[in-house]
């Protein structure tokens, strides 16, 4: 399975986070929301202007901007 940035994922695509390269405040916020390596996520959709992106985690839905999704690398998983 291939690795790709969260920004480039399509609606309905699933993956496991393998790296979060942000640090400082953004990195902290991302981790506060539970986006750490090993977390399974599914892209739920995008806002009408294609940004931000909504992702579905195990127990909740989170939205983040594309430029924030750039820091998150995901390994794609099939169904």
């Amino acid at each position, binding site marked *: 399975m291939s690795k790709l940035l969260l920004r480039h994922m399509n609606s309905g695509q699933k993956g496991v986070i393998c790296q979060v390269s942000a*640090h400082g405040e953004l990195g902290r916020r991302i981790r*506060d929301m539970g986006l750490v390596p090993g977390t399974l996520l599914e892209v739920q959709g995008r806002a009408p202007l294609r940004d931000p992106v909504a992702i579905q985690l195990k127990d*909740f839905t*989170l939205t983040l901007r594309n430029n924030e999704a750039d820091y998150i690398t995901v390994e794609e998983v099939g169904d």
Partner: protein
Amino acid sequence: MRQESLIAVAGNPNSGKTTLFNAITGARQHVGNYPGVTVEKKEGYHQHNGQSLHLVDLPGIYSLTAYSLDERIARDFLVSERPRVVINIVDASNLERNLYLTVQFLELGVPLVLALNMMDEAKARGIDIDSEELGNLLRIPVIQTVARVGKGTDELVRAVAKASAEEHSWLPLRLSYGPDVDPVLDTLEKAIEDAGLLTDLYPPRWTALKMVEGDEAIVEKASQQDRGLVNRLLQHIEDLTAHVKSTLDAYPEALIADYRYGFIRALLKERVIRRSDTEGRLNLSNRLDQVLTNSFLGPLLMLTIIYGMYAFTFTLSEFPVGLFESGIEKLGEAAKFMIPDGMLQSLIVSGVIDGVGGVIGFVPIITFMFLAITFLEDTGYLARAAYMLDRVFRLFGLHGNSFMPFIVSGGIAGGCAVPGVMAARTLSNSRERLATILTVPFMNCGAKLPVFALLVGAFFQQSQAWMMFLITCISWGGALLVARVLRGTILRGPSTPFLLELPPYRLPTFRGLLIHTWERIWLYLKKAGTIILLISILLWTMMTFPQLSDEAKEPFETRRSTILSGLPADQRALVESEPAEDDSEALREIRDTLKEVDAEEAQLALSSSLAGQIGKSIEPVSRLCGFDWRINVALLGGFAAKEVIVSTLGTALSMGETDPEETSSLSDRLSSDPYWSPLLAFSLIVFSIFYAPCFVTVVCLVRETGSWKWGIFSMIFNTIFSFVMASLVYQAGQFFAVSI
């Protein structure tokens, strides 16, 4: 009687924290601010078996870092106030992420009682939690609650009372953060303990942990005590960072977070959580979102919902507003009857009753507006709106959450900037919040509408709808551009990370809606009673003094007595009596002539008052926008409330008092006055959109930003900005008109 125990209520946003707080404390609440900041501090009391529990609702936070104001407040409160017990409320249906904050409380060592809230939702999603097992593993009391219906709160209060009665010191949890971080942490902990660095405030290991996490607030505080030691410690951390970066391509703070989540996952696996339904995650919320945030349907539905909010607010507030207005009017009449004619009567009626009455007149609108907003917020819809619109607002340095303040203030004509400014509380970043607060007064509030209606009606009869649309576009364009400029200059700074949670759709509790709305109204009224009263008296004074001298009044007196003395005695009595339907034509004419004399006198009085003199003295400058002293005075009056522009303009044009709701005669007068032109009217419209907010808004702005600085800034900056815009319009218009 035992002494009261301080209890803090903490947890993630959307975990039902406020609902639980309301359920425990009931109506015995007090809303204030944390010292020196504008973040709301809610306090309440609960009596349990003679023990008094003093509860403080901490801001909703995701972690104990010090990046946002909310987090700093929560952290400082725990450390400096040392509550006997912290109630940590967690969303049981989203346990893993909620426990991340819990772990950080445990690291700090505060005495904790865990409230597993929303157990009903968790069960509905097939999540089964063994709370006793969780309590055993964490060694803290764990209580299951459903705060919405008050389930489990008695048990929770008992556990809290029990815990607070016990004597205990802070017991920090010692976690392992892996083979790289642990040795450094041990070294730091020992050095900190030996030197007594901040040990009166924090456990040594926690200080060490925060330093490794790069917590600037802690580093700074520690440096003040022992700079040399801190620099040595930071050297250790730099080495660690370099090592972790080269071997694992990660940061120490990321490793620490990973280990915390690892701890939580291991904890939950140990017999605590069982999921009977791992499939079918596409629950009701997700299905709703497929429609409500759909690329095409989403924006359409959003417009419908906004329209519905307006319709709800204005339809429902129409009756109480009318009631308030007639009540104020009656009060004014009663005062006129009870106080003899003269200065005191004028002060009480025109200054105090009209001024404060105008403020109270806003209450119904604020009430319904906030009921609507709170409803949208509590259902979870507001987060969706922010998500859909973030891209647009970000272009101008704002945030998706800026959307509600703009709409409430009159983004679609007819709102009010007062609740708009208060609605900006959903923004956590201070720069984005300030930029929003400072630009929402440009929206077309309901009080500006009579001004536009008058001018558009008088000069743009043919294209009224088009003009109103243009006015809306001008105010949005101006507001967004100014926001952009502010964010690029005095409010420059990076945008906050967005990372917005979309909470599941929930039906709000009626009680929660009422409490939240009441808090807003109360804060508003408290301000209205003091400063607003002062300013309305000041404005009244400016418009009344200095009064006309007796010589100046004399010609009017003479004219009145000439008119009356030419009449037979019975006629004179009729003229002075109340007008009636069957009055003769001649009688009406006499009355109109008398009214004209009164109006001319009022005009002269206004022109020689302080306000009139100011209006005249700035005429040389205001001519650039085409304004004469009459318009200047009207605009000065508009600082009290924008619709006052209409009534003051009426007086200044010697039309007598003009009712803002009934402007047809003033409109005819303007369109036939040679001084006025469509260009001047348009220039005045532009000025009215952008100039200083009314003083009620200014007072709210000061309250919300916590300093007069921004209130004064908005008055001066907005007026200069509006002056430049209106001058450009007027001068360009004249230039092209001449060249054509």
